C-alpha cells in the first residue's frame, strides 16, 4: 500500500504542467459532456415518453368521445322509440311496426334489431320483422334481467350472440344490448314491457379498430366488473392463447399507470365512459416509449465520444499553448543548470510568463556578474596572498636585514644584532601567523613595530617613529599586513629625503563603530589628485621594500569587510602624507568565532 502511494506520489511530482492542464480540462470536459449527454438523453426520453402518453391520452379521449356519441345515439333511438312511438301507441289497436321499421331503417348501420317484449318474454314488436326462436329463454337473458332490476335506467349489456329471432339467413351476430322497461298502453291500462335495441358489435369494433397506439400498442374496452367487452385479441383470450390484465385495469381510476404484465413493462391509460361504467384501456409497451433502440444508443455513444474527442484536441492545443512558454523557460533553466550562463530567456507567452522570463534573465546576468566578482575577488585574494607570501619571503628585505645583522655582529654590536634578529623573527612570525588573514590589532602593531625597528636600523636612524594605540583597540580584529606596506611607502617615499627629522606616526583608534589605523609621515607629500590616483591605478609591484602595494591593501580590506571600508590617503606637497585604514571595530574573538 505504501509502495503504491509512493508510486502515486512520485508520478504526481513528475507529471508535467501540460499534462496536468490537459488532464484537468479533459476530465472536466468529459464529466460535463457525460452529465449533459445523460441528462439530455433522459430529458429527451422523458419528454418523448410524456409526448407519447399525451398523444395516447388524446387518442383515447377521441375514442371515448366517439364511443359516447355512439352510445348516445343509440340511447336517443331508444328514447325516440319509447317516447315518440310506444307511449303514443295503444297495444290493443295500434301497430308500431311501420314506426319501428322507420327507426330501424334510419339507424340500421348501427342497429341490429329493435324489439319489445312483454314481461313474460313474448315478442310484441320487432324490426326487422321476424319471429322469436322456439326454446329461447328471453326472460333469462342478461339484458332482460338488468332492465327489470333497475326499471328507471337504460342498461347496456353484452357483448352476446343474438339468438332471439328466426332470421332469413343463418347468420349469428354479436350485439351489444340496450334494454329498458317501458310502459305499454293497453287501452286505459298500462303494463310494463322491455324495449330492446341491439347494437351491432361491428360498430364498436370499428371505433376501436380505427384507433392505433403505435406498432405494439392497443386499446380495449372493459365493463364495470372488468369483463372484456372489446379486445383486439378477444378470441384468443377466451381460449387461453392470450392473456390480459383486465381485472386489475378495472380497479384503475382515469389516468396513466405503469404496470408489468407477463414480463413486459407497459403504460396503461384508463378513461371511463360516461353512463355505462365502462372503461377504455390503452396499453403501450414501454419499449415503444423508449427513445432509443440499439442504434440510437450507439449514436448517442458516438455523439458523446465525438464531442469528447473534439474537446480533448482543443484541450491538448490549449495546454500546449499555455505550457509552451514555461517549457521554453524550463529549457533555458536546464542550460543554466548545465553551466551555460549565456542563455537567453526568449519564451514569449503571457504577461506573467514574460515577466518571469525577464526576471530570470536579469537573475542570470546578475549571477554571471556575481560569479565574475567572486572570481575577481578570489583572484585578488590569491594575488594578495601571493604578494603577502612574496613579501614574506622577499629576499631583498631579508638580505638587507641579514647584512645589517652580520655587520652588527662583525662590529660587535651584539645587543643591536640580537634586537634585529628578534625583530626579524617577530616580523616573519606575525607575517605568517599560521596562515590567518585576521589577527588582533595588537599583533599587527607588533608586526609593524618590528619592521620599523629593522628599517630604522637600516636607515641609520634617519627617521623616528611612534606607535600610539588606544588600549581598547588592541583586541579588535585587523587584517594582517595592512600597516607594513603603508609604513614601507612612508619610508621609501617619505623618509628618503629626510636627514634625521623624518617622523612616522602610527595610530589606532575607534571612531563610532569603526577601527581607524593610520600611518602618517612628514615627508614631501604629494598632490591630492596623485594621492587619489594611487588607489585607482593598476597594481604595480614595488621593486623596493617588501613588495606589497597600497592598492593591494585597499583591495584586501574591501574584499574582506566590504565597500565601506579601506584606505584613505590624505596628502599635500610638503605637508606629508597620512594614510588611514578604516576597518569595522569587531573584537578579534568574535571574528575568529565567525571564521
Amino acid at each position, binding site marked *: 500500500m505504501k509502495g503504491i502511494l509512493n508510486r502515486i506520489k512520485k508520478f504526481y511530482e513528475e507529471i508535467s504542467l501540460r499534462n496536468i492542464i490537459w488532464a484537468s480540462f479533459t476530465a472536466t470536459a468529459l464529466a460535463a459532456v457525460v452529465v449533459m449527454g445523460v441528462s439530455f438523453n433522459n430529458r429527451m426520453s422523458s419528454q418523448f415518453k410524456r409526448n407519447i402518453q399525451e398523444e395516447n391520452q388524446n387518442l383515447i379521449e377521441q375514442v371515448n368521445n366517439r364511443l359516447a356519441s355512439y352510445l348516445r345515439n343509440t340511447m336517443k333511438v331508444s328514447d325516440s322509440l319509447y317516447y315518440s312511438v310506444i307511449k303514443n301507441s295503444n297495444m290493443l289497436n295500434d301497430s308500431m311496426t311501420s314506426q319501428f321499421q322507420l327507426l330501424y331503417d334510419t339507424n340500421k348501420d348501427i342497429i341490429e334489431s329493435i324489439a319489445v317484449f312483454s314481461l313474460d318474454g313474448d315478442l310484441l314488436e320487432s324490426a326487422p320483422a321476424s319471429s322469436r*326462436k322456439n*326454446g*329461447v*329463454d328471453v326472460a333469462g337473458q342478461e339484458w332482460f334481467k338488468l332492465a327489470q332490476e333497475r326499471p328507471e335506467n337504460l342498461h347496456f349489456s353484452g*357483448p*352476446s*350472440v343474438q*339468438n332471439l329471432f328466426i332470421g332469413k339467413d*343463418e*347468420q*349469428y351476430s*354479436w350485439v351489444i344490448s340496450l334494454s329498458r322497461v317501458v310502459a305499454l298502453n293497453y287501452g286505459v291500462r298500462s303494463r310494463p314491457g322491455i324495449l330492446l335495441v341491439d347494437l351491432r*358489435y361491428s360498430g364498436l*369494433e370499428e371505433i376501436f379498430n380505427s384507433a392505433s397506439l403505435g406498432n405494439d400498442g392497443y386499446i380495449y374496452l372493459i365493463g364495470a366488473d372488468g369483463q372484456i367487452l372489446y379486445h383486439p*385479441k*378477444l*378470441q*384468443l383470450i*377466451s*381460449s387461453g*392463447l392470450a392473456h390480459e390484465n383486465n381485472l386489475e385495469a378495472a380497479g384503475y381510476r382515469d389516468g396513466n399507470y405503469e404496470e408489468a404484465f407477463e414480463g413486459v413493462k407497459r403504460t396503461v391509460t384508463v378513461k371511463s365512459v360516461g353512463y355505462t361504467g365502462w372503461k377504455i384501456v390503452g396499453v403501450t409497451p414501454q419499449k415503444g416509449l423508449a427513445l432509443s433502440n*440499439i*442504434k*440510437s444508443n*450507439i*449514436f448517442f*455513444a*458516438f455523439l458523446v*465520444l*465525438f464531442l469528447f*474527442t473534439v474537446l*480533448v*484536441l482543443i484541450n*491538448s492545443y490549449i495546454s500546449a499553448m499555455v505550457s509552451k512558454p514555461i517549457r521554453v523557460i524550463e529549457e533555458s533553466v536546464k542550460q543554466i543548470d548545465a553551466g551555460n550562463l549565456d542563455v537567453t530567456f526568449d519564451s514569449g507567452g503571457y504577461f506573467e510568463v514574460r515577466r518571469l522570463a525577464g526576471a530570470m534573465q536579469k537573475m542570470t546576468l546578475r549571477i554571471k556578474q556575481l560569479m565574475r566578482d567572486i572570481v575577481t575577488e578570489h583572484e585578488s585574494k590569491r594575488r594578495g596572498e601571493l604578494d603577502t607570501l612574496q613579501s614574506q619571503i622577499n629576499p631583498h628585505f631579508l638580505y638587507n636585514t641579514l647584512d645589517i645583522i652580520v655587520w652588527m655582529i662583525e662590529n660587535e654590536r651584539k645587543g643591536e644584532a640580537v634586537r634585529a634578529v628578534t625583530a626579524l623573527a617577530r616580523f616573519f612570525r606575525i607575517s605568517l601567523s599560521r596562515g590567518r588573514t585576521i589577527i588582533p590589532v595588537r599583533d599587527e602593531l607588533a608586526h609593524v613595530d618590528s619592521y620599523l625597528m629593522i628599517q630604522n636600523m637600516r636607515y641609520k636612524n634617519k627617521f623616528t617613529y611612534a606607535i600610539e594605540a588606544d588600549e581598547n583597540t588592541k583586541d579588535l580584529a585587523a587584517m594582517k599586513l595592512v600597516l607594513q606596506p603603508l609604513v614601507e611607502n612612508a619610508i621609501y617615499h617619505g623618509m628618503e629625503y629626510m636627514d634625521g627629522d623624518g617622523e612616522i606616526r602610527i595610530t589606532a583608534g575607534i571612531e563610532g563603530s569603526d577601527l581607524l589605523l593610520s600611518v602618517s609621515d612628514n615627508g614631501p607629500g604629494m598632490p591630492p589628485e596623485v594621492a587619489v590616483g594611487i588607489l585607482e591605478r593598476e597594481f604595480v609591484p614595488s621593486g623596493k621594500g617588501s613588495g606589497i602595494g597600497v592598492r593591494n591593501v585597499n583591495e584586501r580590506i574591501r574584499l574582506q569587510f566590504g565597500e565601506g571600508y579601506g584606505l584613505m590617503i590624505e596628502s599635500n606637497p610638503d605637508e606629508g602624507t597620512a594614510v588611514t585604514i578604516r576597518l569595522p571595530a569587531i573584537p578579534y574573538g568574535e571574528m575568529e568565532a565567525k571564521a
Partner: protein
Amino acid sequence: MKTRGVVMFFISVAVLAGLYLVSSTDLVLTERKTQVHNISVLVPDENDECWGYFKKGMDAASIEYNVDVSFVTLYQRGRADQQSGLMLREIENGAQALIICPADSSIIAEGLNGAGVAVPVLAVYSRINSPQVKAYIGANSYNMGESLADAIRQDSRAAGITEVIAVSAPGDRSDIDETYEGLSNALLGSGLALRREYALHDEDVPALLARFNPESGEVIAALDPLTMQAFAAEVRLLEESRRALYGVGCTNSIIRGLEEGAIRAVSVSNGYDAGYLSIKTAVELIERSKSAGTGQFVNDVLVRPENIYDKEIWMMLFPI
C-alpha cells in the same frame, strides 16, 4: 509522446467512424425490415364452407405476423392427387410454407417425399407421415369421438338408439380415424351396433339417407365437418322422426340444425385457434425460431341444444 498522441488520434477516428457506421447506416446493423411471408393453405374440400372459423383465425394471425395467405380448395372434394399437384404449384409460385389438411395423408406424404419439398410443411387436423412435415395442429379427435359416443349413449334409452352409422369421407385421414376410434371404443359394451359408411360425393348423402332407418333406432354420426355439413343440410329437411344426426364440425347451418333439434349433438373444435396457430407456427418455422416436430392441440366441446346458449360456448361457436 507525440507518436503516442498521433496513434491515439487515429484510433479515436477509427472508433468514431465505426460507431457512425453502426449507428447511422445499414452497413453493419441492418434494421429488421417488416417481412411479408407467403403461406399457402390447402384444404381437401371444394369450398371453404366448413373453414369459416379457421379462416377467421388465419386472418387474425396473418395481420399480426405480416402474412399473405393463399387459401386453396380442390376442384373436386377429396381428390388427393389434385391436392398434391396444387401443393407443388404453390411452392413454385413462391410459397414459403404450406399448411395442409390432406385429402389423403398417404398420397400427400408420397407427393411430399417425391418432390423433395424445401419449404416447411405443417399438417392440420389430419397428420401426414412425412419427414417434410415439421409441425401439426389439430384437435383431440379421439376425445371428440368419445364425446359423441357419450351423447349417443345418453340418448340411447330415451331415443331408442340401436345402431350408429359412422359416416365419413373416404381416404387416409388420421383425424377421422381417431374420431372413429374414440367413438367405437366408447360405444364398446353399450350394446349399440356400429357400422362404417363412406360418403364423398353429393349424391352419396341422399343415397345413404334413403337407406337410413332412424325408426329402427339408427343414428348417423358424421365423423368429419364436411360430411356433417352435407348431412345437416339434408336432415333438416326431413321430418322430425327421421332427424337423428350426431357429428363433428361447426357451421351456422349446423348450429341452426341444433337449435331446430334436427341435430342432436355436435362435437366442435376451436377452428379459430387452429387457424391462428397454424399461421403463427408456419411463420415460426419459416423464421426458424421454432424447432420441428411440434404438435399443438386446440380445445373441443360437445354442443347440444340445451347448452348451445351457454356463454362459454359462444366464443368457440361464434368467433368474433
